[in-house]
């Protein structure tokens, strides 16, 4: 505290504690202060105390959140993988292990600000990576798949952030869960499937949209290396449609031929 550092404008960096606790600090200063913070336990404790105070400033500004926000948040959470906790054992071995960047959870990357078209391009490239990871894209036709992924990531974001986005879950007969977010305004739904049972190599799961407008195949999925499918976007959603799932020959079928394992009214 009494230590004087000549670099920070001739003042001890400590005086920045208040500004830092209120984020009233431009990026370069912030980075410099955080370096200082890393080696100053006393400062870290002071910041923690000041943040208890600023949290109260936030509470004093509380207003009711918009209706529908909760549903969107809960739906997005249901489709977002959580960060793993720090590994207690690894932490014991090395002080600061070089951490492999966590897989970009796809929804976070896709949560495009609706009004920020400029930022969207930058975000989209992250989203493509995220989607690539989720889809398990490897080498080979990676570029094609990435291009497809880029298009679908924008569509997925549009569905998840739609005002009328609704979430549903369905249990698959024989095991597994399908989680759906749909938007009739966007004429589309996004879904993931988890814990589906393995099938013989000759067969795969096929998802369908069925309804008055006819039966349309959505996607094939063969559980194997992955225990999770999706997110998959199905566009062309029409009134009265159901999302259905059948086990079909691995090459896919033109229309459902096997018993429905899932039938969700959309």
């Amino acid at each position, binding site marked *: 505290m009494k230590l004087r550092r000549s670099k920070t404008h001739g003042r001890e960096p400590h005086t920045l504690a208040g500004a830092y606790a209120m*984020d*009233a600090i431009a990026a370069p200063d912030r980075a410099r202060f955080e370096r200082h913070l890393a080696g100053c336990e006393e400062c870290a404790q002071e910041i923690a105390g000041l943040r208890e105070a*600023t949290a109260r400033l936030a509470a004093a500004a509380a207003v009711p959140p918009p209706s529908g926000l909760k549903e969107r948040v809960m739906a997005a959470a249901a489709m977002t993988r959580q960060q793993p906790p720090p590994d207690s054992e690894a932490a014991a071995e090395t002080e600061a292990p070089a951490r492999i960047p966590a897989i970009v959870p796809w929804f976070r990357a896709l949560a495009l600000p609706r*009004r920020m078209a400029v930022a969207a391009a930058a975000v989209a490239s992250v989203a493509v990576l995220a989607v690539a990871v989720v889809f398990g894209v490897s080498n080979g036709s990676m570029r094609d798949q990435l291009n497809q992924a880029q298009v679908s990531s924008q569509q997925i974001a549009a569905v998840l952030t739609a005002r009328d986005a609704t979430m549903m*879950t369905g249990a698959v007969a024989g095991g597994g869960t399908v989680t759906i977010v749909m938007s009739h305004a966007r004429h589309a739904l996004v879904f993931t499937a988890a814990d589906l049972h393995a099938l013989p190599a000759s067969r795969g799961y096929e998802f369908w949209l069925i309804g008055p407008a006819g039966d349309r195949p959505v996607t094939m999925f063969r559980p194997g290396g992955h225990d999770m499918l999706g997110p998959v976007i199905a566009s062309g959603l029409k009134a009265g449609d159901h999302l259905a799932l059948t086990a079909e020959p691995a090459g896919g079928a033109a229309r459902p031929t096997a018993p429905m394992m899932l039938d969700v009214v959309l």
Partner: protein
Amino acid sequence: MTSVSPGGRPPGAPRSRGAGPPDPLGDPLGDPAGDLGAQIRLVARGDAGAFDAVYEQVAASVFGMVRRVIRDPAQSEEVTQDVLLEVWRNASRFDAERGSATAWVMTLAHRRAVDRVRSVQKESERERRTAAADIPYDEVAEAVESTLERERVRRCLGSLTELQRESVTLAYYGGYTYGQVATLLGVPTGTIKTRMRDALIRLRDCLGVAG
């Protein structure tokens, strides 16, 4: 053969304690904040019911604060959604030894709000903010705030010197950097930095929060 459950709770997800009546202020008094911490630890294990409870406890504070910084309602909603999702994602990183759960959430939220206004310094956005600034937000705020908590904070803000109070208000609710605050108030930056720190120390002590 199949079952469908509309709504956010996956089938079979346990309902957590605390999911009861919404407390829009995130338990400002006493230390039910310990309860929020417990909920966040459950969220880290993927407990959707606990996340529901966390939402009820923090959403109003997050949205209200974010809206005061950003002003634009649609953007504020986006940022709020982002923040809450980050709470879900990063729940396992919450460390009770480094502060309360409320402070953890609000720190994250404020950083996000400020990052948003600073990344959007384009002219059109500034215009929109200026237009939105015409809304007297005290009126908007009336709806939720528990008068008790609001009064406490107001009283403690009132115990600051005018320069301290303006520095805090412009920085925290206005989202300005200390350099910008110094310009707005016509005071040297060194003075502003000191005032900000002194002000928060006084607020901390006045509000009786753990230091």
